[in-house]
């Protein structure tokens, strides 16, 4: 295999600067998209478990649409198609005057997509609690909303910490798709370095190591959170 090794490029400028900037963009996109995904997804998840058919219907339609279109296609729809189909003035603003259009679009696309997945996690968390708990709450006179707020939601969220953490990590991985609309995040940077220096091995290894570290750290934080929030005596709580 003919290859000239040169690991030093990773620590020389401008490449090092690129890597740091790329990592910064990755983190920024991921965290902002997560905030959107978590709030909207929670709302949708709760909507899907209420007894109001309209709310359930909206939740179902949302999930089916956002789940069955590839994320990349969703990125393109938001970036290329959306500004063209909204009223003319809005479209012009989106294309000309919105600050950081690629960055913002990436957050919207990633956030709305992930919201559909968070919705399903929340829904299955709530549904797994079983009708007995709700019956007991209603028998005490609590309304459906109160039962949701005081009984179901607190317990459900503790149960879904592992899958939610998994979703959070998935957002980090999916943030790499932002490169297709021009966000120079971590993966894009390493491709750029490869194109400039032909040191593909080194460049991609840098990204690989960084993504692995992120996963490792997030898993560690999750384990910590899970331990602190264990509901004593519940299945799977180990307590």
């Amino acid at each position, binding site marked *: 295999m003919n290859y000239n090794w040169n690991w030093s490029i990773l620590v020389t400028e401008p490449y090092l600067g690129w890597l740091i900037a790329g990592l910064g963009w990755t983190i920024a996109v991921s965290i902002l998209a997560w905030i959107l995904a978590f709030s909207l997804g929670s709302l949708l998840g709760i909507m899907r478990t209420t007894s109001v058919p309209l709310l359930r219907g909206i939740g179902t339609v949302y999930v089916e649409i956002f789940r069955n279109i590839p994320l990349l296609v969703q990125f393109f729809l938001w970036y290329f198609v959306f500004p063209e189909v909204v009223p003319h003035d809005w479209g012009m603003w989106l294309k000309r005057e919105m600050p950081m259009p690629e960055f913002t679009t990436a957050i919207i696309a990633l956030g709305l997509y992930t919201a559909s997945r968070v919705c399903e996690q929340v829904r299955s968390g709530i549904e797994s609690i079983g009708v007995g708990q709700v019956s007991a709450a209603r028998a005490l006179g609590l309304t459906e909303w109160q039962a949701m707020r005081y009984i179901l939601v607190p317990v459900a969220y503790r149960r879904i910490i592992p899958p939610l953490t998994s979703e959070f990590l998935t957002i980090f991985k999916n943030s790499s798709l932002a490169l297709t609309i021009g966000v120079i995040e971590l993966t894009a940077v*390493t491709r750029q370095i490869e194109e400039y220096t032909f040191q593909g091995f080194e460049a991609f290894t840098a990204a690989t190591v960084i993504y692995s570290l992120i996963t490792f750290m997030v898993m560690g934080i999750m384990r910590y959170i899970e331990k602190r929030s264990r509901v004593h005596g519940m299945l799977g709580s180990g307590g």
Partner: protein
Amino acid sequence: MGDFDFAVIIDNMPFLLKGMQTTLLLTALAMVGGIVLGTLLALARISSVKPLSFVAASYINFFRSLPLILVIFWFYFLVPLVLGRPVGGFYSVLVAFTLFEAAYYAEIIRAGITSVRAGQFQAARALGLSYGQSMRFVVLPQAFRAMIPVLLTQGIILFQDTSLVYVVGLKDFLVSAELIANRDQRLIEMFTFVAIVYLIISYSASQGVRMLQRRMQR
């Protein structure tokens, strides 16, 4: 918005179909390869041979922590280098997808195997069947039966993920549509069309899996 032009879609149908063919071929091959490799990984992961289990677990955790785009870049870059000659994009990408998906399939299969009661394995061993025979005739058939819906669902996810070959320009369905979109300045029509096609195929497939699941419960 104005003129939504259906003609551009119809006129270029052959080209788009060829792209879809590539998408489906990539999906099918990566799925088969991924399941085969995933089964081996799952068996290694649950085996009592510590080094084997460790290697399998490392592989699985490694590939699951990386973005698919990065894996595609890796193999697009690496495969020709290792083979010493240029390789068509399709093969590099196929290797990337197979190795990547295998890590996900491995976890599904592992869950399936461990869901088969230990008693079944014991009963098979008590009859004198070897480890391999017990796996092959008693445990794996039951495990796969339980796992089919989840394996198929992962296949639908894979189908959508193949769109990422965009980053290396392989002419799949999405890239074919995008080429036309840019050539004819018809981004709205083409991207909307692509979205609808994916939506219909994925939704129907997932409904199919749901029906299959219901039939299997009986």
